[in-house]
């Protein structure tokens, strides 16, 4: 049943996960994601599902690992410093090929930083974060509606590829209230899985592990993981483009920055500047091909981020020197304004 409500991004996220049938949520308090454990502590219990406020982000992420290894849809959420602690379990889950959802409502860093929204965890999210040669699928919502939809879709994606999925949101998208249409059906039936641990009744015992000590076994495992990542790169890139067809300057921005960038494009167009926006909805896999296709003579790119330049490196790799790539960003609580972007577009 579809209904429309004014809610915070963090609440929309919870509703998306609940509609997707998340069976277990494990969390730990940290701002600016506190609405998530708070909302889940009531909702999950009312629904007869699992909620635990863990003793740490380490424990919460490892509880997710445990629930996931049994085939249950499981998730955790946190903000930047807490996500650092979760990297241990994320690396294990990538190695063990466990589907799960990890949500990062980013705040400022490094260290304890502050509680304002930021986009400084891009490297951590898309380049691995934990130890070992692995990737997680990274989704970047830019509205409360997308917090709902991406949380809903994340579990299917995670199970399709047997891999952890991260939603890389930020304190602004998490905290702002917007009308959200709760339009996805509640899920009851899931695809059966043959890899999960549910007791060895009627079959040989299974072991799900990332430790592969036999000669050559880990090498083979890594080749298998990389082949999977290649498939994901081919199939799962998602973008939104806005007025890129005739654009001479193309902004690349995700999350809250893309909302500001879109307004800036409109303002710039009024001044006669042919601006456009390419918004990655998936940060890994990154829309390198779409950017490469737009990188022509006479075009320039502008990466806008709430960081001091992280995603811009992937834009430069995709552009590969074919045209200029500039950067505008700030980190530590400040928001890049439309006017600042337009000023940059004028130059």
């Amino acid at each position, binding site marked *: 049943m579809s209904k429309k409500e004014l809610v915070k991004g963090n609440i929309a996220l919870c509703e998306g996960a609940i509609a997707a049938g998340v*069976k*277990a949520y*494990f969390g730990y308090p940290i701002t600016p994601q506190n609405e998530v454990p708070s909302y889940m502590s009531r909702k999950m219990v009312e629904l007869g599902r*699992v909620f*635990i406020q*863990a*003793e*740490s982000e*380490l*424990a*919460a992420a*490892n*509880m*997710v*690992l*445990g*629930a*996931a*290894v*049994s085939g*249950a849809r*499981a998730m955790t959420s946190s903000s930047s410093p807490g996500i650092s602690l979760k990297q*241990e*379990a994320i690396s*294990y889950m990538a190695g*063990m090929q466990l589907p799960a959802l990890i949500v990062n409502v980013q705040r400022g860093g490094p260290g304890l930083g502050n509680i304002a929204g930021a986009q400084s965890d891009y490297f951590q999210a898309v380049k691995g974060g934990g130890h070992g040669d692995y990737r997680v699928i990274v989704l970047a919502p830019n509205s409360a509606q997308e917090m709902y939809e991406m949380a809903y879709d994340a579990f299917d994606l995670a199970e399709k590829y047997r891999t952890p999925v991260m939603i890389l949101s930020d304190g602004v998208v998490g905290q702002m209230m917007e009308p959200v249409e709760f339009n996805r059906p509640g899920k009851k039936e899931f695809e059966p899985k043959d890899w999960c*641990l*549910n*007791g*060895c*009744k*009627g079959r040989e*015992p*299974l*072991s*799900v*592990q*990332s*430790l592969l000590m036999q000669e050559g076994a880990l090498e083979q495992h890594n080749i298998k993981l990389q082949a999977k990542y290649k498939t994901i790169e081919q199939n799962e890139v998602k973008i939104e483009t806005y007025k890129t067809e005739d654009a001479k300057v193309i902004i690349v921005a995700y999350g809250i920055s893309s909302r500001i960038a879109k307004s800036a494009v409109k303002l710039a167009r009024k001044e006669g500047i042919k601006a456009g926006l390419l918004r990655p909805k998936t940060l890994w896999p990154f829309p390198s091909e779409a950017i490469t296709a737009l990188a022509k003579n006479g075009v320039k790119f502008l990466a806008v981020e709430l960081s001091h330049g992280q995603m811009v490196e992937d834009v430069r790799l995709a552009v590969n020197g074919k045209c200029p790539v500039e950067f505008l960003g700030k980190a530590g609580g400040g928001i890049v304004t439309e006017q600042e972007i337009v000023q940059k577009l004028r130059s």
Partner: protein
Amino acid sequence: MQKIFSKPESLKDVPMSYCPGCGHGIIHRLIAECIDELGIREKTIAVAPVGCAVFAYDYFNFDTTEAPHGRPPAVATGIKRANPDKFVFTYQGDGDIAAIGMAETIHAANRGENITIIFVNNANYGMTGGQMAPTTLIGQKTDTTPFGRDPKREGYPIHLCELLATLEGTTYLERVSIYNPQNIIKAKKAIKKAFQCQLDGKGFSLVEVISNCPVDWGMTTLESIKWTEETFIKTFPLGVVKDRS
């Protein structure tokens, strides 16, 4: 001819990689016998630690998984909460459970998670070459206490059962050993009781098994057994520490 002794179904028919004289093989067998006798092999999900017993999943003949170092109680919590009808136990060493994983241990116990922990205490980190563990005895020489454990420098051995006994959430805690047949029989009884505690839904149970590590202790097997009996269990007295089952 009647067969009166055989390998438990819950153990795979493979050679174990443990060192000669090590206690893990005996403890694995006791667990396997208990699981067979309770008829729960097909609903068991076990969590192996980081440490020598990381290879447990090569030896147990039921569903197994792994956990990052120290996190088995959190992983087991996730499995059990999502699957209350399954039988879930962790197998952990002293470094795993009482150093890097102390927070996970205490909080799983305090929540009264309906899981069982088999805690193998051999007073050192076996897998990495015999470094000091939280349970290393005062004066005991290890790879990282070459002058013997000095409380002024390294603190004191942690008595985990006694520590957990103070928590309302714990139901059954017992310390046993396996240095002679009499104690092996007692150890099996304790493990079976701890498992039954979970099957009856009575909450958190833990059996601490005092075991030997002759290679990293720099002893022969017989010397290690003698040291366990004469020294080790003087610091860690055997017996039921708490029973609310």
